[in-house]
């Protein structure tokens, strides 16, 4: 498939992105660059200086809402991508309503309890929509530890073990690897296996 054919196939697809931090902002940009036609993005938070070590924002966007700034940044890449941005802390009811008509959902929350919530919500409320989660991305190195595990419609990408902390922070390379691997899984779901 050449790139125009890829773009044409992706134009009619919709991907939901839950959280616009390190995973969500980088995955959304990758999906926008290849031409996923519609992105539904949600985050309640504002950009802080400390986010710029990994998140797809710029220093003049500090203080802006992440979902609004991400929409703006995607618009600077490709004006034809439809971005529905929501400033909200997603809870089960709204999550199901926002993502009911998506082809795939990307889980890009920070907190483990929110990750657990979205998996439970999707498995029960939208069981036929594939969900791609990022789990384990702290620190640096360890490229060989990052894998994709599939459980039916649920895909878990990451090292499956490292928890972020003061001493093991999330920083650009490894967060970016996991985010882009998640976007790559999304493409595999939308386009079918390439290899």
């Amino acid at each position, binding site marked *: 498939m050449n790139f125009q054919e890829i773009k044409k196939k992706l134009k009619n697809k919709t991907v939901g992105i839950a959280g616009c931090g390190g995973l*969500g902002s980088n995955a959304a940009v990758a999906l926008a660059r290849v031409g996923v036609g519609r992105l539904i993005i949600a985050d309640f938070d504002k950009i802080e200086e400390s986010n710029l070590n990994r998140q797809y924002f710029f220093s003049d966007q500090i203080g802006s809402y992440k979902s609004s700034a991400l929409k703006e940044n995607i618009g600077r890449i490709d004006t034809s991508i439809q971005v529905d941005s929501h400033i909200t802390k997603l809870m089960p009811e709204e999550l199901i309503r926002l993502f009911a008509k998506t082809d795939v959902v990307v889980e890009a929350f*920070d907190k*483990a309890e929110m*990750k*657990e919530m979205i998996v439970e919500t999707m498995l029960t409320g939208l069981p036929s929509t594939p969900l791609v989660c*990022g*789990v384990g991305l702290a620190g640096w190195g360890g490229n060989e530890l990052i894998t994709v595990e599939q459980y*039916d419609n649920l895909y878990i990408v990451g090292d499956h073990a490292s928890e972020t902390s003061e001493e093991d922070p999330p920083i650009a390379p490894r967060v970016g690897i996991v985010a882009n691997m998640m976007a790559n899984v999304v493409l595999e779901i939308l386009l079918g296996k390439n290899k």
Partner: protein
Amino acid sequence: MKITLNHRADILETSKEKLTINELLKLKKFSFTRLVVKINGTLIRREDYDSASLKENDNVEIIHMISGG
């Protein structure tokens, strides 16, 4: 007890015929507090970890949810 745990064959050191999720977590020393648990494809919610049980040949998935994103 022979089960499939996260796609891999696993033998649990127990004489019981059934184990609850909490017993399994203790046996396997799984320590992360946020989990997604499925037995034979069915989601088991946290409030059922003491009542839902698994038996020989069940397909069990225990997925750790870890902070970071």
